């Protein structure tokens, strides 16, 4: 009986060893860098997809080009520049922060500021003078409140 357990134990040990020694794969860092760059480029034949996600032929070619250029030692900036020179700013997924893209980045904070200021101005210009002074509760008031609460409680039951 114990022998069976012993063999089972050996078997378990062996299989766990097999698990540990099976090849652990890691992402190719070059591929990761390529995908990170591809993430920032727009697939020019797709509808609004980054090159990293698209299955189209052009996107695959672009990913290959990025990989080749990374192997040649080019930097991300150089690779992005390469595509912009040939496809224009359109190929960047995020609009440029200069030139044609300036209004996009400037308008939102401007609109927010403007809207808040306008709202405050309009509200203020229609404001009453100081809110009516809060008066202390009189005993009569307290009595009314107590009665109302009792009725309320009675209504609950």
């Amino acid at each position: 009986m114990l022998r069976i357990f012993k063999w089972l134990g050996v078997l378990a040990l062996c299989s766990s060893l097999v698990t540990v020694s099976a090849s652990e794969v890691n992402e190719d860092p070059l591929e990761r860098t390529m995908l990170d760059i591809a993430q920032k480029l727009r697939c020019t034949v797709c509808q609004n997809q980054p090159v990293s996600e698209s299955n189209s032929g052009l996107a695959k070619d672009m990913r290959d080009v990025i990989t080749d250029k990374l192997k040649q030692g080019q930097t991300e900036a150089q690779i992005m520049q390469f595509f912009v020179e040939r496809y224009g700013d359109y190929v960047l997924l995020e609009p440029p922060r200069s030139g044609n893209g300036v209004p996009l980045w400037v308008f939102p904070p401007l609109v927010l500021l403007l809207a808040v200021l306008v709202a405050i101005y309009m509200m203020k210009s229609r404001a009453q003078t100081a809110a009516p002074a809060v008066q202390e509760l009189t005993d009569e008031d307290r009595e009314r409140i107590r009665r109302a609460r009792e009725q309320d409680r009675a209504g609950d039951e």
Partner: protein
Amino acid sequence: MTRSIWWVIIPVLVILFVLLGYGLTSDPRHIPSPLIGKPFPQLQGVDLNGQPVNLGLVDDKPTIVNVWASWCAACRQEHEVLLRGARRYTDTVSLVAVNYKDELVNAKRWLRRLGDPYQWSLHDLSGRIGIELGVYGVPETFFINRDGIIVEKISAPLTDEKLAAGVALITP
């Protein structure tokens, strides 16, 4: 509600409508090329017969570079135009091509059946040459003047008018 809101809402609406109306007339897939006005890049490859070729200004004449593929239906559409053009402009311009992402066999068969207007077609199986030229679809056609500058890029099938206009641009 102050009258001043008029000055905000009305222009906004007008701009919106005009913009959307314009949008109906434009093609969201067309991309203007940043290569226009720049020198044609120096690119090398082999043609369909295996001979090495240089893509750019050919025979020191203004050059038309047409990007085509046998799997492209629209290319068949413009092929007649190119055949006519090749005959008409044979002395004034050079006409070469990039065969984009095509099997050699298919490309050759296509030219055999429909006619070959080009001096040669550079075989771009991988599509890399296309990327160097900012190609995003087929067919596309580049017009290069005598100074080697890309004067025009047409990202649609050619017509006789477009071809004539392009030739006029590169032959002063």
